[in-house]
């Protein structure tokens, strides 16, 4: 047991909790009501909007999956960050979806479905959205626990992964139930700064141990051109790169509810595009910086240190980066980084738990029970939802055994929602001819993206198709259903929009 690291860890943890409480002081809910609880009173300034967008999208899971990609694919994994930068910058430049959705004044995204297509589309769309989103976050807890445990175990602090999972989720639930969206946003600012400092400190420290020249040389020797060129890498290629512009860029920024809900919280409409344009840098960094840590871990475990990973079997690529961090960093820096990683886990976890539970409460349970505007009922249902989703996360983390990289699991599970989500959002906002029938057909056909998940793909004999191919296919089917459904729905097109709910 490394007692010095443990003391540093304890000290930084206490400091972190004190600072979080200090950040909340005098900034708790400024009022009551659904707008306060669900969109933080819609009063975000530019800086806060960027921080909360960045903190939500950089979680411990983000660091883990990008480090895994960097470890497996070398520098060519950086193309995912470039794709994210391009996609998010395009959203910021043109205000694609984010600008018009802010103008609608809705509190949740399915609420827009009702404004545009009718109440049944709101409920159906919310079910698809919540199913894809909850499935997507299924591995967050497991991966975060494995990452933190490997990091601390390598430094002589033995931790049980299952105990860590229960502890992490318990803290997340209590804290997320506390103050709704405002509570999430206040802590996001603090967590973003802490995480930024931790990541940069780790990279600067590790670059002293494995200089860039040496890293390039090792990757070139061990992986060849595929370690640099994503277009010739067998696991990537042009189709994958294009899929990344869509998934890691456009969808992550403009369609994914945890990010898009930030646009709903921004006070001034003109700040929405600015926030996304500046945040595109974060979308780049959140992929590239952890991927570089993964590249450094690959270099570290090539040669004399290779034996250190032997006991981890197929999880070696996942634990390599945290194990390296725990192995080489001094106790105080490791403790600081562990708290920064914990903060990054919390910043994503709170946003995700809150986002999906609020959609369940407001857009599924609310319309079905006729209590959409019942404040106490909505807030209570959201809190129950947070608890139930946390239990599921614990369960799913223990049973899912897919063989794909974590990032590919996230992209595919997310596509269950976004393959139809992007069609409904963009089609609804930009095509006046869209109708309820088209929306329902798009939702049904977009759900075919579920066949991109490893176990299901094998079950239906689609192993020959790549996940991007299945994803693009599902989007194409959804667009087809949306267009054909709308064009054949003369009655729906004749109906005024306001009369549809």
């Amino acid at each position, binding site marked *: 047991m490394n007692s010095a690291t443990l003391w540093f860890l304890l000290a930084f943890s206490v400091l972190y909790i004190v600072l979080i409480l200090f950040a909340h002081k005098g900034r708790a809910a400024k009022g009551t009501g659904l707008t306060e609880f669900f969109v933080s009173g819609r009063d975000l300034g*530019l800086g806060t909007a960027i921080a909360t967008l960045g903190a939500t999208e950089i979680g411990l899971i983000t660091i883990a999956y990008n480090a895994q990609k960097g470890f497996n694919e070398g520098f060519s994994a*950086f193309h995912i960050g470039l794709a994210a930068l391009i996609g998010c910058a395009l959203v910021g430049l043109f205000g694609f979806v984010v600008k018009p959705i802010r103008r609608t004044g809705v509190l949740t995204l399915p609420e827009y479905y009702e404004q545009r297509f009718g109440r049944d589309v709101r409920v159906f769309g919310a079910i698809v959205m919540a199913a894809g989103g909850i499935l997507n976050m299924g591995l967050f807890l497991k991966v975060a626990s494995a990452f933190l445990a490997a990091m601390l175990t390598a430094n002589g602090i033995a931790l049980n992964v299952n105990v860590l999972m229960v502890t992490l989720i318990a803290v997340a639930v209590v804290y997320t139930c506390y103050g709704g969206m405002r509570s999430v946003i206040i802590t996001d*600012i603090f967590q973003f700064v802490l995480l930024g400092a931790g*990541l940069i400190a780790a990279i600067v420290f590790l670059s002293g141990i494995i200089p860039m020249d040496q890293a390039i040389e090792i990757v070139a020797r061990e992986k060849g*051109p595929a370690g640099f*060129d994503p*277009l010739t890498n067998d696991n990537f290629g042009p189709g994958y790169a294009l899929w990344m512009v869509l998934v890691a860029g456009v969808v992550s920024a403009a369609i994914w509810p945890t990010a898009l809900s930030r646009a709903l919280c921004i006070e001034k409409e003109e700040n929405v595009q600015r926030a996304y344009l500046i945040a595109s*840098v*974060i979308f780049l960094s959140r992929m590239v910086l952890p991927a570089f840590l993964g590249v450094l871990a690959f270099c570290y475990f090539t040669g004399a240190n290779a034996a250190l990973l032997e006991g981890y079997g197929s999880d070696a690529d996942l634990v390599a980066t945290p194990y390296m961090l725990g192995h080489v960093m001094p106790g105080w820096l490791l403790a600081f980084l562990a708290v920064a990683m914990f903060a990054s886990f919390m910043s994503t976890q709170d946003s995700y738990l809150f986002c999906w539970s609020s959609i369940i409460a407001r857009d599924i349970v609310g319309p079905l029970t006729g209590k959409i505007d019942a404040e106490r009922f909505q807030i209570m249902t959201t809190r129950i939802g947070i608890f139930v989703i946390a239990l599921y996360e614990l369960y799913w983390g223990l049973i899912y055994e897919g063989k794909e990289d974590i990032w590919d699991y996230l992209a595919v599970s997310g596509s269950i929602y976004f393959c139809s989500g992007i069609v409904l959002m963009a089609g609804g906002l930009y095509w006046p001819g869209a109708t309820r029938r088209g929306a329902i057909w798009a939702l049904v056909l977009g759900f075919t993206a579920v066949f991109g998940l490893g176990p299901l793909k094998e079950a239906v004999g689609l192993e020959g198709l790549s996940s991007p191919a299945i994803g693009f296919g599902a989007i194409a089917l959804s667009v087809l259903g949306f267009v054909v459904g709308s064009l054949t729905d003369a009655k729906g097109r004749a109906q005024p929009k306001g009369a549809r709910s």
Partner: protein
Amino acid sequence: MSVDAWTALWVVLLWGSSGAFLLVTFYILGGALMRIFGKGNGAGND
């Protein structure tokens, strides 16, 4: 693109993103501190 060109691109992207990330972090930290210590609205409440 040659491997050398890809390498140069990734090196520029890495250091560029590190610098930009640091700048955004300072911008947000500065705004938050200004709000906490009451020196105007800061970046967080502009």
